[in-house]
């Protein structure tokens, strides 16, 4: 092989494909190794079996839920909603396919070579690519970027069989929803699927070991979400651990444990949403001398591993395992390789969003974290219960909460739950990126009526100047 690439990216998920495009833009001879199967393919988990199809199903769910809850009062009648999960899944697959094809187009446009197959590190500067059929071959490169992502986790006794016990991959293609479903795990993935299946008429129970839904977010968010879900008829079992599952029984018997003792829950399907493990097996990391940090590849703020010329980005390189974090690492790594890197990765300003209804969006420090970090904290909280835009949308629930530094007014964190708050987190992130204080947010005339006004009101509240409360 006479050809030597500047960069070979292993994996074409949102970290890998973005890295490859950026590297090619910077004039580097770039290849991206990714299989082309239905299971994997360009776009990785995000586009194929994660963010994008999930959001498509959540939109179907929101439409169904809105018609059920608000059709009559909003003057849309008669409402006799029929659910067709199969159609919803077809639509989500169509959107997913459109976007993954788009990546192929972007690769061509930017001159990224897509090498089909599975990649592993053969040695420094050598990537071994194994196609689905045929012999492995070696691709030579000056730099390697590991972007292999992560796979669904499960527990012993709860191994995913694809039918009775499913993961997010199977849930996204579940054309015939069961009567009863238990979602194990109340994090963002769990509450999103619970939302979808509840809206499509499934009797949903969420089992979460910790004391609250979305336990990583601000505590009030978990409470608000649980209240909303209970109103929609879901059963929320926080502080509850799953013990065992009798798959032979019909319906299956799930045994759970709380501090009060064991209980049995009948269910048709168990959906495991207990996190994902980084994909490092069989990559040749040990042989190449690439150090790990727990299950992840250890990197510095420029995404460099312990071996010069080998980078790691995305889910395989550490938490938070979020697409936008991986994409940004991809850009940092590409620019570092090209020698034009401007800013290192900053991990304290990565937004986290749950697309359940009501939506959850957070960034920065929670009130507790800010206090622990030694800040004197001033919280500005604005409830959405009487917010104009939320009322017109039929979703007057939730709040926007700004955690500010009492001394200088710096925006330390923003925590929101409510209608469309996923679209508000960009403002919060920019405010933090630009080191804005609550003064600047409050001083900007936000459009009326919009959900964004709630951010302005929360900023005002942080200065004890809220107008609409």
């Amino acid at each position, binding site marked *: 092989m006479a050809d030597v690439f500047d960069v070979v990216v292993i994996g074409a998920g949102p970290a890998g494909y973005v890295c490859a495009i950026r590297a090619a833009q910077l004039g580097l001879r770039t290849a991206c190794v990714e299989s082309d199967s239905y299971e994997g393919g360009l776009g990785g988990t995000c586009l194929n079996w994660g963010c994008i199809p999930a959001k498509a199903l959540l939109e179907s769910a929101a439409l169904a839920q809105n018609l059920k809850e608000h059709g009559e009062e909003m003057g849309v009648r008669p409402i006799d909603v029929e659910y067709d999960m199969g159609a919803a899944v077809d639509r989500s697959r169509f959107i997913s396919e459109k976007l993954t094809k788009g990546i192929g187009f972007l690769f061509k446009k930017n001159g990224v070579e897509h090498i089909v197959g599975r990649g592993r590190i053969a040695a420094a500067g050598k990537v071994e690519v194994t196609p689905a059929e045929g012999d492995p071959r070696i691709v030579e490169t000056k730099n390697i970027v590991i972007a292999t992502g992560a796979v669904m986790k499960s527990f012993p006794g709860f191994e995913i069989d694809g039918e009775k016990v499913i993961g997010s991959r199977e849930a996204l293609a579940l054309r015939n929803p069961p009567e009863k479903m238990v979602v194990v795990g109340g994090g963002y993935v769990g509450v999103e699927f619970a939302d979808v299946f509840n809206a499509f008429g499934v009797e949903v129970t969420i089992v979460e070991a910790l004391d609250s839904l979305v336990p990583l977010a601000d505590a009030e968010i978990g409470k608000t979400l649980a209240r909303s879900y209970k109103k929609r008829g879901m059963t929320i079992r926080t502080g509850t651990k799953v013990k065992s599952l009798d798959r032979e029984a019909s319906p299956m018997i799930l045994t759970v444990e709380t501090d009060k003792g064991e209980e049995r829950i009948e269910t048709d399907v168990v959906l495991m949403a207990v996190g994902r493990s980084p994909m490092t097996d069989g990559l040749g990391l040990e042989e190449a001398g690439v150090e790990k940090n727990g299950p992840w590849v250890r990197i510095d703020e420029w995404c460099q591993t312990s071996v010069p010329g080998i980078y790691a980005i995305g889910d395989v390189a550490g938490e938070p395992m979020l697409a936008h974090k991986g994409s940004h690492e991809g850009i940092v790594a590409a620019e570092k390789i090209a020698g034009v890197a*401007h*800013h290192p990765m900053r991990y304290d300003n990565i937004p986290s969003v749950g697309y359940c209804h009501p939506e959850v969006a957070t960034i920065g420090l929670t009130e507790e974290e800010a206090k622990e970090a030694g800040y004197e904290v001033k919280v500005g909280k604005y409830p959405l219960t009487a917010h104009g835009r939320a009322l017109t949308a039929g979703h007057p629930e939730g709040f926007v909460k700004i955690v500010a*530094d009492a*001394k*200088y*007014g*710096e925006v330390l964190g923003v925590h929101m739950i409510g209608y469309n708050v996923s679209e508000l987190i960009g403002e919060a992130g920019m405010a933090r990126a*630009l*080191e*804005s*204080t609550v*003064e*600047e947010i409050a001083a900007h005339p936000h459009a009326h009526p919009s959900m964004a006004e709630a951010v302005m009101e929360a900023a005002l509240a942080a200065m004890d100047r809220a107008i609409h409360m």
Partner: protein
Amino acid sequence: MATKIVMAQLSPTMEEGRLLEWKVKEGDRVEPSDILAEIETDKANMDIEALKGGVVRSILVEAGATVPVGAIIGILGEPDEDISDLLAEAEASLSGTPPVEDAEPEAVAAGEPEPAAGPPPSEPAPEPGTTAPSEPAPEVPVREIEHSQVAESSVTGRIRVSPVARRMAEGANLDLGAITGTGPGGRIVKSDVEKAIADGSARPAPAAAPAETGAATPAPTVAAAIGPARLEARDLDLSMMRKSIARRLTESIGPVPHFFLTSEIDMGRALDMRHELNQRIAPEKVGVNDLLVKATAEALARHPEINASWAGDRIRRHGSADIGIAVAVEDGLITPVLREADRKGLIQIARESADLVARARDRKLVPEEYQGATFSVSNLGMFEIDQFTAIINPPEAGILAVGSTIEKPVVMDGAVVIRRRMRVTMSCDHRVIDGASGARFLRTFRAMLENPLEMLI
């Protein structure tokens, strides 16, 4: 088409400019952006650029001449073009057209006065003529006029700084101009200010208190103040003149541009009063220093412009006169703060001061008790020092250095008499205090000590 080369307004405060040097001569062909001439403004030497290409047809003002903003100083055009109209217009402009704000030559309409941009009625219009300045330059070469923010930025060089960093720097009394920004485009970000604070590099004084000095400072644990509030805490916007004074003087002498005012005060009546008072209130006692603190606080209450701090982009007036009292301790000095002295009587000041000074010497003060003064008094009288200057403790804007009270011959009512005299020297932060305002304050201070009844009025 021929165009005018005008004396552009190159800074918001500029009213006239001196033509230092022509970079072109008549007949030269120029391209847009070519430099035509170098101009001296009230602030700096700057270039005038060609806005259009053409041939320099006429140079109307010679090097060395000073002309008002807006005057036509030359004409660009094509070699064969008729420029007689423009020449006539130019003549008019050079003989007394009011200054215009817009530097765009096409916008200059000669003979068409623009009242809004013209000087205030009380000010004489710029002297006609094209020769050297006919008036001596004013003491401060800037005057407040209407100006656009954009213009100001382009002239003074806006400091790129994040809102949080700006506030932190203000709070720590750091000069933003002295901090290197590491953010995008050299923007000063939070971590840069944190670094500057940690380094101590840009910080003028170790005891400098945070921005909350004054109104936001929690009251200490001593007895509550008496009397109504007399001072109001507020931030004042900076006038162009104030900005200019601050910038220029800082460049001249470092972060806090000091100047000094000295006054000799006749202490006879004050000392007699103190003696009498001490006999009446025994065993309590009022010290000379307590009189000085009281007089300082009273004078501050009557001159709130002295009880203020430079806060970067504004002047912060404090809501109470919190007097720092410099106390010598074994290996240095500390300045306990007598809070709200403007609202306290002499005896209360004496009591609190005695307590603070005693505890200062025993090193028993808590930080709130020695941080955040608004003005300080340093008395070296007991060391037989006639006169000295003290260094300002930022963000305070002034400090009084008090020398010994000594008996000396002075002339009073035409006769030589022996009087007890004390010299005080006030150090002033020129960004906040000017000669005249400092002098007025000192005059009040002196009047109170020379006639202690003044303090009661």
